[in-house]
């Protein structure tokens, strides 16, 4: 059987009815006039009824059904009665199934002009709700911590110990690698400049002070933000998705005391210890480079010893506590406020790392300025 190209013909003989003759093979691969051309004609008809006549219809598949459904919807919108004759029974049936449930009106479609997506009011609202969320989180955290101090919080020590282990010893390998390399980078950077004055020996001072005050703690914090901060957000976000946080709340336990406080405390306790470790390894890394430039280990140690001072060490450690708090707060806040889907958990983890890193840099700058003013 040869295929006939599909087509239709709108016949309006009298004012009472219009007949749409469907002919040919309405199957995939055969091009036909599209609905748009019919739509304009349909708008013009005055008849109260449209009859679809399928007498000359050959083969058909979903192409025909898609076309008929559009006709049906158009007729319904225009208030024209729609009926069919001489069509296969299953065409009738399929159209009935497809039109049982009324089309859902998605409401006003979001506009596509730049004004719609760059909406300052919307941005400000977002900023406001983000600020309110953050303040609420900080407030609840303070309440939970104060309850912990008076011994009323439902925080479990075993959780705290577990998170300490996760944040501390488990991070040794990556912290070792990064801090040795950062120590070496500092030494190279300094050595090239100091060589011009023949003052290579001062590489030791540069590395020791640089690591203790700045690089040791900052690199540790960045690694921990990616490692632990993101993990906190993902854990809490998944718990939100699994309704675990609902379960905790309805048990009469504050999720803040039970989930957030042990995580934050663990990171605040572990950060200074990791920073000390990172400082040590960074200085050793600097020593390796110095050795390559002809400074013996003994000279390096002797020179470095002179540079070690309590205030440098304290600056680093104070920073480490602040950074630990910021990373943990950013991670937990993103996790607790996460949505209830796997995409939302991913978003929470990303947000945790990005906000943590921004917090770190801003806090580092602020602390440095304060210490500069205080001459520490």
């Amino acid at each position, binding site marked *: 059987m040869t295929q006939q190209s599909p087509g239709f013909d709108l016949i309006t003989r009298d004012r009472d009815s219009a007949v749409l003759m469907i002919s040919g093979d309405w199957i995939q691969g055969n091009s036909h006039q599209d609905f748009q051309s019919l739509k304009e004609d349909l708008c013009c008809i005055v008849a109260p009824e449209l009859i679809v006549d399928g007498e000359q219809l050959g083969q058909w598949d979903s192409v025909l059904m898609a076309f008929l459904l559009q006709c049906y919807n158009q007729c319904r919108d225009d208030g024209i009665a729609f009926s069919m004759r001489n069509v296969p029974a299953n065409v009738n049936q399929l159209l009935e199934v497809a039109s049982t*449930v009324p089309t859902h009106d998605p409401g006003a479609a979001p506009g596509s002009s730049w004004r719609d997506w760059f909406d300052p009011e919307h941005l400000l609202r977002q900023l406001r709700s983000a600020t309110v969320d953050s303040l609420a989180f900080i407030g609840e955290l303070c309440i939970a911590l104060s309850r912990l101090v008076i011994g009323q919080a439902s925080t479990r020590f075993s959780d705290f110990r577990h998170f300490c282990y996760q944040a501390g010893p488990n991070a040794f390998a990556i912290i070792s690698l990064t801090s040795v390399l950062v120590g070496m980078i500092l030494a190279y950077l300094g050595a090239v400049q100091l060589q011009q004055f023949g003052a290579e020996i001062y590489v030791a001072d540069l590395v020791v002070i640089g690591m203790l005050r700045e690089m040791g703690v900052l690199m540790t914090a960045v690694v921990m933000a990616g490692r632990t901060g993101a993990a906190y957000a993902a854990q809490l976000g998944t718990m939100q998705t699994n309704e675990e946080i609902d379960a905790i709340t*309805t048990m009469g336990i504050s999720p803040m005391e039970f989930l957030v406080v042990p995580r934050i405390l663990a990171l605040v306790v572990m950060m200074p210890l990791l920073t000390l470790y990172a400082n040590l390894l960074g200085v050793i890394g600097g020593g390796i480079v110095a050795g390559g430039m002809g400074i013996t280990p003994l000279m390096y140690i002797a020179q470095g010893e002179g540079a070690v001072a309590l205030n440098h060490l304290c600056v680093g450690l104070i920073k480490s506590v602040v950074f630990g708090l910021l990373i943990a707060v950013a991670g937990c806040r993103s996790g607790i406020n996460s949505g209830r889907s796997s995409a939302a958990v991913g978003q929470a983890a990303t947000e945790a790392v990005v906000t943590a890193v921004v917090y770190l840099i801003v806090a580092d700058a602020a602390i440095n300025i304060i210490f500069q003013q205080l001459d520490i």
Partner: protein
Amino acid sequence: MSEPHISVRNLTMAYGSRVIQSNLEFDINRGDIFVIMGGSGCGKSTLLKHMLGLLSPAAGDILYDGQSFFAASEEQQDAMRRRWGITYQSGGLFSAMTLAENVGLPLQLYTPYSAADRADIIAYKLALVGLAGYQNYYPSEISGGMRKRAALARAIALDPEILFFDEPSAGLDPISSSLLDELIVQLQSSTGATVVMVTHELPSIFAIATNSVYLDATSKTMIAYGDPKILRDHSDQPVVRQFLAREASSSATAEEPS
């Protein structure tokens, strides 16, 4: 019958400006097995979350033993919650804890039991739901049906007065699901607790429910209240009869996306 255990008074639920259900008004008596039914996306789980106090109503109130939940102070709310046992749609078990720790957590927090006594109680509760010996398994290591039962064991840890179930038998095979129904009935009759469950599993509804409410997605309110077996034959609402007799018809209402 004395005063109702739970009363929902003129409750309206909304997410922002989108109203989910309005003017809900029904009582749940002590010892009832009460089912919240309705088509998909009609707000059954949302109603349950309101009853659990996880969401605040747009209007109206929910009373437990005549005491308003939402007007109560935080301490009172916690005290009320301690008399409830809840299982969630996805189980809600703590994935980072073993089954023993899951069941033991409420005991550890709210009872003066020693660690040894607690272990005995945990073993007993797990045995009740047929999970004896699974104390040291993590939720991810057991099957879906077992997780539902483990969640039930945690829900009954504190011998609650009210048990809430969110679709307890969803995703279970017919045998496991009927076993779970049986278990719920047995626990209910032996402890006298009030059971509130969200479900649309007809076999469960007819097997165990003593009272029910039907939420309608189109009119956004409750359209039937009573024993489901009676509603099936005598409800004046065709939709409810269709739902309970599992019939589709051309006049069946459309499902709204949730």
